[in-house]
Each structure stands twice: as structure tokens, then as C-alpha cells.
């Protein structure tokens, strides 16, 4: 396995820590952290505290089953079904559960709606709280100091770094996830999508659009970012 390390100027040691992935074809030399993690897993398995099959299943679940495609389904449903949208905004957790979505890290969901007047953006300044059942595990930038520091004090500047510019007349509300309530943004439905079926609409909904650091794609540009 190889990864793009183009973010190697990351000041938080991230690139350094995964520079020697032991999946790597030339991975004969284990880095200190890899050796430490292997030792810890051996110990916890030997003690009977963890089961290797459960660890494998956890990884598989969060790498392949739970991710932003689930949140995109929720958004697409809200765009096409006004009664669902009303339930979602009133009480998000049971509404999301109607689609068979929910669970750990999303027990207490709140969905906030973007309008021409208000743009919403989600952050966790204190750690990394993120709505796992609808978005999966958070990207590195969401957990790293630059975003956590400035999302609350300079949201418009942060949006610019994502290439997003919203009208001066649109006010920004930032949701700092300081408790077990978890926030997802319901973005505005893009123009030119009248009559598109739910599945085609879901393909326009990016992860960042549901965090509030992006906007949905326009039809014909369904390349996930």
C-alpha cells in the first residue's frame, strides 16, 4: 500500500508517523510506533481483553461500510420528501433511523439546514466529535489544530481555504460539538436538479457539504471530493 505523502509539511508529525506503513511492500523495518502497536495488540489479545476478529471487523466496518454515502442518502431524501425533511430538522435521530442509519457516535443527532440567509459549519474545537453513522470517521484536517482553532473565529477564511466562497449577505453559524450531540449540515439543493431521482441527488452530496466546508456538486460534476 502506498499513500500520497504530499501533506508532508503537516506540522503535526502525521506524515512522519505513517511514513513506514507495515503494509508497504518494502516494509522490512518497522517503525517504533508500529512495533509498539503490534506489541500492545499481542498483549491485549493474550490477556483476553480484545479479540483479533473483532478488531478486523471494526476496521472493515469503518473502512468499507460506514461513510458519507450514508449521510448523502439522508440529504437526498430530505431534498425530495418535504415531510421527511420536516421530521429530520425537528428530531434528527429517529428520522435518520428511518433509513436504517444510526448508532455509535450519532446517538443524538442534530441536522441544521443551510438557507440563502444562513450557512452552517460544524467543528469540534476540543477533540474530534463527528457524526460517525452518517459521515464515517473524520478526515485528518477535521481533527487537526488548524481547523479546530480557526473554524470558530474565522469561518469565512477557513471556507476560502476549501475554495468555498459564500455571499457576504449569508451569515455563518458554527456548531462546536462540545457534548454528545452530533451535527450534520443539510445543504441547499443545487439548481438544475429538478426531477433527478434520489440516487442521482445523493451522488451530488459530498462529505464536506455535510460538514459545511463544502457545497454540493452541480449535476454533471459527480466526482466525489
Amino acid at each position, binding site marked *: 500500500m502506498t499513500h500520497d505523502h504530499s501533506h508532508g509539511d503537516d506540522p503535526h508529525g502525521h506524515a512522519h*508517523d505513517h511514513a513506514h506503513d507495515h503494509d508497504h511492500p518494502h516494509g522490512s523495518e518497522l517503525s517504533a510506533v508500529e512495533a509498539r502497536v503490534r506489541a500492545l495488540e499481542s498483549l491485549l489479545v493474550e490477556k483476553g481483553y480484545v479479540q483479533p476478529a473483532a478488531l478486523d471487523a471494526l476496521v472493515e466496518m469503518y473502512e468499507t461500510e460506514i461513510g458519507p454515502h450514508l449521510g448523502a442518502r439522508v440529504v437526498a431524501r430530505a431534498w425530495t420528501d418535504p415531510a421527511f425533511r420536516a421530521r429530520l430538522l425537528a428530531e434528527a435521530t429517529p428520522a435518520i433511523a428511518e433509513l436504517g442509519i444510526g448508532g455509535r457516535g450519532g446517538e443524538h443527532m442534530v441536522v441544521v439546514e443551510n438557507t440563502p440567509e444562513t450557512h452552517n459549519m460544524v467543528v469540534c474545537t476540543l477533540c474530534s466529535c463527528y457524526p460517525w453513522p452518517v459521515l464515517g470517521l473524520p478526515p485528518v484536517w477535521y481533527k487537526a489544530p488548524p481547523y479546530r482553532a480557526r473554524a470558530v473565529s474565522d469561518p469565512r477564511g477557513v471556507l476560502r481555504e476549501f475554495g468555498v466562497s459564500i455571499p457576504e449577505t449569508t451569515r455563518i*453559524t458554527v456548531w462546536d460539538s462540545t*457534548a454528545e450531540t452530533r451535527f450534520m449540515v443539510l445543504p441547499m439543493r443545487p439548481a438544475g436538479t429538478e426531477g433527478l431521482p434520489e440516487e442521482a441527488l445523493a451522488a451530488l452530496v459530498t462529505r464536506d457539504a455535510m460538514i459545511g466546508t463544502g457545497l454540493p456538486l452541480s449535476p454533471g460534476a459527480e466526482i466525489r471530493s
Partner: protein
Amino acid sequence: MNGGQDLGGAHGFGPVVPEPDEPVFHGAWERRVFAMAMAMGFTGAWNLDGSRAVRESLPPAEYLSSSYYKIWLEALEKQILAQGLATAGEIAAGHSTAPAKPVARTLSAEILRPRFRAGFPSERPPGAPARFAVGDAVVAKVMNPETHTRLPRYVRGRPGRVEALHGAFVFPDTNAYGRGENPTWLYTVAFAAADLWGPDADPGGRVTIAAFEPYLDPA
């Protein structure tokens, strides 16, 4: 605590740099740290608030220069030691030399999906009526605990307004230390950006936090 984790409003960390086509994990060891932290949390040896308290107790220089899962790894080892689940020698050797300490439960692959799908709700029956109502003017307390709290520094002493009442939830400030769940009312409190950042604020902007009742005073 006023540790390295309390980042809201800090300067000097540079721009946000999203990684195109970012994988869920960067390398195999991150996968295993994530999964071990989940599975060990499931044993009941500690709770989520306790994990956050340990992670944010890392010296700020170390916290801020470590990758996310490196912080998780450091905290996981500390918690295992603190709960007497293994010794430092065993952790260093990666080999057990003493009997295991009994744990309440272990996570199996079979129960993982239904159990995580059900989730681990934090809402509890309230022990007392709510002190504040939607629309109330409040002030975030000025407080300075050396222990775990979820009131970020950047709102302390600032005026806000109650926007929602979520119910009574496990109180992290006590639960982190095994001192009880103490179900506590949780509110959405909105602050005008100008009340937080003054003339440098985004015009018309607002910031909301989820605030536990003891974090608030009437305005």
C-alpha cells in the same frame, strides 16, 4: 482543563490543508489503534469521557505535535496502566506475565455490528427540572478547572442565549473520573461572534456550543 486540546480561537497553526482522496486510516497501525481503543472502551474498564480526559492531559507540546492516533495510542497505554489491566513491563514486552484482570465484557465480531448500530446513548432521566428555558439570556461561567470539562475557554465569561434544551445527559466533568454520571441538563447556547472575537469577528456570525447547565449563569 486548559490543555493543548482547547484550540478554539488559537492562531499560528497555518491553513487547513485537506488531503485529496484521503484514506480512512493512514497505515496499518492507525487501524489497529482505532480498533483497540474501541474494543477496550467496550470492556467497561473506562468510559469515553475518561478517554478524552487522558488524551487532553498529554503535555501541550506533545499533544500538538502528535498525530491523532498517536495521541490515542499514548492515552490507551496510560489507561491500561491506570486501570491495572497490564503492567508497564508487559506493555513494553508485548507479552503477558501476570493473570488478566477481569473485565465486564469483551467485544466479539459477532456482536459488533448490532451493538454499534444500537449505539451508546448518553441521555438519562433528569434528576431535577431544567434551570433555563429556550430564549433565556445566559453567561458562560468563568471557570478554570484543572480537570476535564467541555466548556471551551473561548466562551467563558461571554453572554449567549439558550436556543435548545436537549435533555439530561451524562456529565463529563464527573463521569471522566468515575465519579458518577450525574445526569445534567444540556442546552444549545448561541453566542454572537462579535461577543467572542470583537471587531475581528465575521459580521453577523454566530457560534453555538452544547453547554451543560453548571457551565451557565443567568445573564
